[in-house]
């Protein structure tokens, strides 16, 4: 199994983004990924705590030795809608 650092960073980022899109527990196309050494930092917003945690699990399965910094926020929507008047 490939470890972070064994391949160019660009490929690691691409593999992680592909895994986050393909895994049914994440299906996330909107997570940004940065890799430096053995660390992975993920940012963005998801809709549930479960999906936020699943991002770490997916990356952990792909790169078991990776140190994951999870900066993903869980989306909180304001209750009131926006209102726009159109003629």
């Amino acid at each position, binding site marked *: 199994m490939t470890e972070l650092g064994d391949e160019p960073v660009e490929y690691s980022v691409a593999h992680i983004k592909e895994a986050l899109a393909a895994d*049914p527990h994440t299906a996330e196309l909107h997570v940004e990924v940065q890799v430096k050494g053995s660390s992975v930092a993920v940012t963005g*917003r998801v809709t*549930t705590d479960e999906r936020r945690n699943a991002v770490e699990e997916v990356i952990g399965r792909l790169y078991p030795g990776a140190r994951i910094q999870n900066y993903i926020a869980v989306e909180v929507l304001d*209750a009131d*809608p*926006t209102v726009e008047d159109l003629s």
Partner: protein
Amino acid sequence: MITIAAAADLHLGLDSAGSFKAVLEGLDSSADLLLLAGDLTNYGDPAEARVFTDEIAGFDLPVVTVLGNHDYHAGAESEIRSILEDAGVTVLEGESVSVSCDGGTVAVAGIKGFGGGFAGASAADFGEPEMKQFVAHTKAAAESIESSLSSLEGDVKVALLHYSPIEATLRGERLEIYPFLGSYLLAEAVDRAGADIVLHGHAHTGAERGTTPGGIPVRNVAQPVLGHPYALFRFHRGRLSGDSDQDTADAS
């Protein structure tokens, strides 16, 4: 007055039960219909579509939707469509529907749309069969929405898409992925046929407002863009527009 509630990119999963139902409370008294611009599900799993239909059980407004790319991901889009339709939701993919409200008629033409990019930086119908197929899918969507809109009549005409017809509502997304987020062909089609508003989703970090080159308002109603569960669009026209204007004048 006609009030349209709109949202997109709910991305409901099996872990989302209750989240959308909670925000729908009271909407039936403040809007005439709910339009959804795709990505109701997260993985395209029919079980996720059932989460959605459970969320709208007992909801009193007409619901009209298109599917988004996430709804297609698991290859179960036909089953998802059936689940939604069995729950009373109107699903548009090249079709149109007219909804009669107290204030008038809302006519909606809907299709998912597709990518390809924007004028000056768009995919061309050239080269390998795979590239031609990509462009052909977008062209077919554009021709379909133009045809649907052209034959529509209503007090308010809506083009409901998942992909964006313009760049302005993508601002905030990485420029490199614009060709995967929409196509100018959709805007050109809407401008030819005419509409009062275009609603789309798909671009989570895009911007809320823009207009087509022909001047038609475009709104990105993806929930992450709105920061709210839905947006309300009020059109002061239709059968009760005179009453509504009078009410406004009296109030002021």
